[in-house]
């Protein structure tokens, strides 16, 4: 019985009461296949397109949005109609028009273009954070799990330490020491949330260590590194992926919040949070400066949430086999 804290769907009540049964045989005298697969009508392997069409509408919508946003991020130069950094003091705080779809900000820059570039910056930084953090966490988690002993104790102690202090606080201290510069933010973000991955990985490595295949490999003399790469890593993938989907919005939020407070990405570079922060003073005169990036942030979060749940549902099903 899974007692994970997944927000997956409930098991369907009807199917639970359905008797366990052998599955259907294609032909009356087919050989016994054993197993206790749930009874389902025979289903041909669906094509990829059919599987996509099968998804819930909310998941499809979010996937679509993610694709659009990814496209905008990667091809910002072609998608954005104007130069986001070019001030134009003759066109300050203009409302939306045909020329500037979302209007202009307080120094005349096109809001839409700026939002697109800000999206790219935010996403870029968030990705750096996610991947670096995951990398660090996985490495340390594996080290702690495989090597045990003092290595484990030290690493666990460090993990506990980081758990005790909220990440944003660590960032704040780091920024206060190193200064409010963009590179500082990026550096600090790369260490964000490594500890959640580390703890997960460590736990998993501990249970994987007991696996007969791993014991056999060690017994046959594989070096630790080989064991780590060949046996442990593949089993960690699903956990790490789920963890990444959990972390990503948190890291994005972190960057947005810091930039909002003026402590993150520095002008002229724009990030979504920074734009919201800058737009705060112009809520009445040019609300779109703040609202446009805010909307993008919310959209991203919503999509993360929906897709994250979906990823967790999908990987859950596989675990319960």
């Amino acid at each position, binding site marked *: 019985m899974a007692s994970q804290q997944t927000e997956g769907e409930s098991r369907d009540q*009807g199917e639970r*009461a359905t*008797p366990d*049964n*052998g599955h259907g045989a294609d032909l009356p005298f087919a050989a016994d296949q054993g197993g206790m697969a749930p*009874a389902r*009508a025979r289903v041909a392997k669906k094509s990829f397109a059919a599987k996509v069409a099968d998804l819930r509408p909310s998941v499809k919508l979010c996937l679509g949005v993610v694709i659009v946003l990814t496209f905008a991020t990667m091809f910002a130069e072609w998608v954005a109609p104007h130069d986001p950094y070019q001030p134009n003091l003759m066109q300050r705080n203009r409302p939306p028009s045909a020329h500037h779809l979302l209007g202009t900000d307080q120094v005349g820059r096109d809001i839409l273009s700026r939002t697109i570039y800000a999206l790219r910056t935010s996403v870029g930084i968030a990705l750096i954070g996610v991947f670096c953090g995951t990398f660090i966490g996985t490495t340390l988690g594996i080290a702690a799990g495989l090597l045990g002993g003092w290595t484990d104790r030290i690493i666990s102690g460090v993990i506990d330490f980081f758990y005790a202090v909220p990440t944003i606080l660590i960032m704040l201290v780091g920024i206060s020491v190193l200064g409010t510069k963009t590179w500082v933010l990026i550096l600090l973000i790369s260490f964000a949330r490594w500890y959640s991955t580390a703890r997960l990985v460590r736990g998993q490595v501990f249970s994987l260590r007991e696996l007969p295949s791993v014991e056999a490999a060690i017994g046959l003399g594989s070096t630790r590194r080989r064991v780590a790469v060949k046996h442990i890593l593949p089993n960690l993938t699903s956990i790490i992926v789920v963890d990444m989907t959990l972390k990503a919005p948190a890291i994005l939020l972190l960057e947005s919040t810091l930039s909002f407070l003026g402590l993150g990405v520095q002008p002229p570079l724009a990030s979504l949070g920074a734009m919201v922060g800058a737009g705060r003073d112009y809520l009445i005169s040019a609300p779109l400066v703040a609202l446009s990036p805010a909307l993008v942030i919310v959209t991203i979060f919503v999509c993360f949430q929906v897709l994250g749940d979906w990823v967790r549902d999908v990987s859950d099903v596989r675990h319960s086999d």
Partner: protein
Amino acid sequence: MNGESSAGASTTPVLEVRNLSVKFVTDSGTVLAVNEACFHIDRGETVCLVGETGAGKSVAAFSVLQLLGAGGVSRRARQQGDIILRPGDGREYHILSLPEHELERIRGRLISMIYQEPMTSLNPVYTCGNQVAEVLMHHARKSRREAMAATEDLLKSVGIPDPRRVLKSYPHELSGGMKQRVMIAMALALHPVLLIADEPTTAIDVTIQAQILNLFKQIQRSSGTSILFITHDVSVVAQLADRVVVMYAGRTVETGSVRDVFCRPLHPYTKGLLKSIPKPFKVGEKPQHLIPIPGTIPNPADLPSGCPFHPRCVWAQERCRACIPQVTTPDTGRAVMCWRWEELQGVS
């Protein structure tokens, strides 16, 4: 003999299941779990519902209490037919058409059920005493003290050696056999007219199984409770049952007294079942060949045409594939669903 059978009881059976069909509508199709099942249970009688896993026995049993889903009837279930309860005070309850609050008055009081998995069937955050007493406090309106005292007696009567300790214990502190006893106590607290037992010994150690079975025999002797005992273990049937109902692919293919069905099975499936049971042999004797029935049970979402057993039946004919056999009742309380039962009498 096993339990008491009141004479002439077939006129007013405690439970009558008529043409019960239960199907579940799922995303991948309709699953027909129970198909026109018919059987009855007389007062004080023990009826065993036998069949392989997946034959529909559990679903039929849950249908009696309308528990097809954790909280009540699942929205995906469609039921047809009639289930009639006659507790003996002259009233008749047609279970399938009762509203929820009426059902709540029947469950636990007139019909009780114990389940296959004692490990997960008790609430982990309340003491065993609490959970048993709850039935008394709710249905019989007893005070907490009265209920707890009665519970202690109940626990003793089901063979729990230290009832006072168990009263205060949590389920996870007890063994599987003890938990099952607690559930039995809970089920019998209000002297229901019918006790449904869904494979209660399947998930327990073999040595404890025997104890639980003895407990059931004791219940049969001392109370007049009718028992619907679901199992796939034919030896349990031999020990406990007065009558047997054999189910296959959701249909009741044969019914009769234990003696009749075991000694003179009429349905090919029953014959096959009995042949595939290992029998002990004496030293020096040749062990009997185990003859399993070829093939597997059909997928309830995709049943064969005609007789559901025909794909695996050695004696199957064209008629068997084409039409569902009628149910014939060669004798009172004896029924079989097969085209060729008469000619196959005595053949094994």
